[in-house]
């Protein structure tokens, strides 16, 4: 068996390819991006013609993957945790229609919010949709589980959620890999159960409920579950990578139940409880299992974890806070303070020198200063860094696309000038519908689509709307007189600031598109060209 050094993300990608994947559908999002990139660059995927282009957003990705499953093929959808919110409608209902070809939904959660705006735990979505959830604890399991998840998906006729966290997605280890198996045959489903009219949906929902004992049975007999249970005071339920931290602590005289598949294996939990005096739940993310365990055991059975404060309520787990939790001690925060180096300050990320967003913010800062009451609604991307010094130029950043709609709502309430700043990829992801609302209401807002021709924050992936922005805005009904394109360079500062003033003063929807390629992708292209020329 061949051994390869792979990131958790790459192990999932290769596992999917080897399990006979026919298509991956995704929108870039840290820490999930490398899965799709691996497939895009894979010679095997090229040879097999695996579908892998970036999608416009997570909802279009989820729906297209469901369509591929409908046709009998195995499909994978990848996203960061907040992407689950975007595709939730399609996701939850895909459990009601059921699937034909195996369908895996990969959610990469980001506890500690390394590159995110919240730390929601995707396992809740899996439970909400009532589908099986797999949670690998290492890179090998990540690779192996994909094939098992596809198989379970096809045997239960349900999508399967595969949940990872940043520390697995972005950590490398050697993985034993097998041989690629063939893809499913083309086999479109004939059933009526895909038509979720109320009469059919009721039947399908009842069918989903009736499958639940099978889901539970699959989790109770999961080959990834490990029971090291004997008569001990402390019983630990260790989920996903939480298991690694428990094992790292190397404590003797504890029982450990490793949980890697859900619904929560109730019998295994009861067995652990009967052999222990108390249970500690070690899970990265939110107290998903801890809450359920409290419901399974009698009310006076001592259960602790993130809810009780034995482990921190927020942030990711690590070997230190888990070791402290196992011993029931505080995590040594005071001691740490004493040992901390003195001459160290934070080094926050910043917009690159020479980045076009910098020129946009320089102009914006100047013009906004001229209007008392001005508010700038930001969005998700590199340009969110405009919130930090030296610019401190945005007043909000909530979710993909919210800049335009929040600016509109604020303008409805009387804010003037209400300015939205959104990137090109975010605009096509979730900004277009908001722009249509604004046009239909003739909202008095100024929208800046800062177009750097790429999805820069996640490393420069193709952006769905490149070369189409003027047509999109005109098509949605923005007055052609008020769709302006500028080139964000210091030498154009006067033109940019004047355009901003003119469009702020126009009573209605205006769109300004500062357009200049991301300096990172530009430099990468130049390097490639140089390399080609040398050949």
């Amino acid at each position, binding site marked *: 068996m061949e051994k390869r050094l792979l990131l958790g993300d790459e192990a999932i990608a290769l596992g999917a390819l080897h399990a006979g994947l026919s298509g991956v559908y995704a929108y870039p999002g840290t820490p999930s991006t490398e899965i799709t990139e691996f497939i895009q660059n894979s010679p095997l995927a090229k040879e097999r013609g695996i579908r892998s282009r970036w999608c416009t957003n997570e909802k279009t990705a989820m729906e297209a993957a469901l369509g591929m499953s409908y046709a009998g093929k195995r499909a994978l959808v990848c996203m960061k945790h907040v992407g689950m919110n975007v595709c939730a409608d399609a996701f939850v209902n895909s459990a009601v229609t059921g699937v034909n070809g195996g369908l895996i939904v990969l959610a990469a959660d980001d506890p500690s919010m390394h*590159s995110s705006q919240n730390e929601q735990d995707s396992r809740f979505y899996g439970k909400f949709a009532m589908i099986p959830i797999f949670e690998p604890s290492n890179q090998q399991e990540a690779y192996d589980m994909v094939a098992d998840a596809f198989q379970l998906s096809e045997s239960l006729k349900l999508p399967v959620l595969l949940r990872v966290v940043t520390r697995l997605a972005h950590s490398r280890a050697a993985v034993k890999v097998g041989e690629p198996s063939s893809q499913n045959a083309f086999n479109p489903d004939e059933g009526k159960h895909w038509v979720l009219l109320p009469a059919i949906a009721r039947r399908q929902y009842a069918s989903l409920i009736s499958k639940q004992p099978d889901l539970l049975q699959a989790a109770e007999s999961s080959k990834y579950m490990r029971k090291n249970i004997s008569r001990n005071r402390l019983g630990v339920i260790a989920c996903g990578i939480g298991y690694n931290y428990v094992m790292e602590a190397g404590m003797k005289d504890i029982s450990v139940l490793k949980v890697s598949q859900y619904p929560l294996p109730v019998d295994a939990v009861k067995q652990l409880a009967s052999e222990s005096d108390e249970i500690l739940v070690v899970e990265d993310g939110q107290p998903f299992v801890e809450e359920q365990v409290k419901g399974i055991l009698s009310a006076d059975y001592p259960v602790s974890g993130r809810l009780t404060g034995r482990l921190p309520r927020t942030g990711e787990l690590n070997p230190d806070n888990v070791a402290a939790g196992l011993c029931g001690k505080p995590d040594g925060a005071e001691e740490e303070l004493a040992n901390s180096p003195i001459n160290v300050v934070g080094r926050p*990320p910043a917009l*690159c020198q020479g980045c076009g967003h910098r020129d946009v913010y320089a102009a914006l800062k100047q013009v906004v200063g001229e209007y008392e009451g001005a508010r700038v609604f930001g969005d998700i991307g590199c340009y969110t860094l405009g919130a930090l010094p030296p610019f401190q130029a945005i007043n909000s950043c909530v979710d993909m696309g919210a800049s335009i709609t929040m600016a509109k709502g604020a303008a409805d309430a009387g804010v003037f000038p209400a300015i939205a700043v959104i990137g090109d990829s975010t605009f096509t992801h979730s900004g277009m519908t908001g722009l249509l609302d604004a046009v239909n209401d003739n909202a008095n807002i100024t929208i800046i689509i800062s177009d750097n021709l790429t999805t820069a924050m996640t490393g420069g992936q193709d952006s769905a709307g490149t070369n189409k922005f003027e047509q999109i805005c005109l098509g949605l009904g923005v007055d052609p007189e008020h769709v302006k394109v500028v080139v964000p360079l210091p030498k154009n500062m006067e033109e940019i600031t004047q355009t901003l003033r003119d469009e702020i003063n126009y009573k209605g929807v205006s769109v300004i598109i500062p357009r200049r390629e991301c300096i990172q992708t530009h430099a990468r292209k130049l390097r490639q060209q140089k390399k080609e020329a040398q050949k």
Partner: protein
Amino acid sequence: MKKDIILAGVGGQGILSIATIIGEAATKADIQLKQAEVHGMSQRGGDVQSNLRLSTEEIYSDLIPKGKADLIIAMEPMEALRYVPYLAPNGVIVTSSHPFVNIPNYPDEQKLMDELDGMKNVVRLDIETIAKEEKMPKGANVILLGMAASYIEILSADELREAVKRVFASKGEAVVESNLKAFDLGLANK
């Protein structure tokens, strides 16, 4: 035997390339490895670190516990200091002494160096200047790896040197030669 290493620097300084070379050597030597990286927002001129764990036994955690790192390899002196709480009592710091100042509140450089020199086992060298003098501006990270090579122990300097060849092989002979030179320069300056 195990070796827990923290690689530290500023986004773009090439610490992930160092990790790649050590990883390549470890894989070849059949040593177990886990390497946690930082991707995404944290890369844009911010501090970047990678936890690299090498062992002859099974490795569980992707992250190194506090006080357990055997070695800090840093491309920047303040970034070296940042991870001191993770360093084992007899751990070693191998760092560039060349500050990378991209923030307005960078600490007083003398105080920073004094604090660094007050640590138990510190090897520091102005690798940026050496890289410039030797006309290998992109080789600073490999010079640093050469400096650190004899402290990695679980892998020999020869094994690392061979890994440098394999990692850069696809980029042509000139790139391999230049990186070997950088590695040897570091090794000589340990």
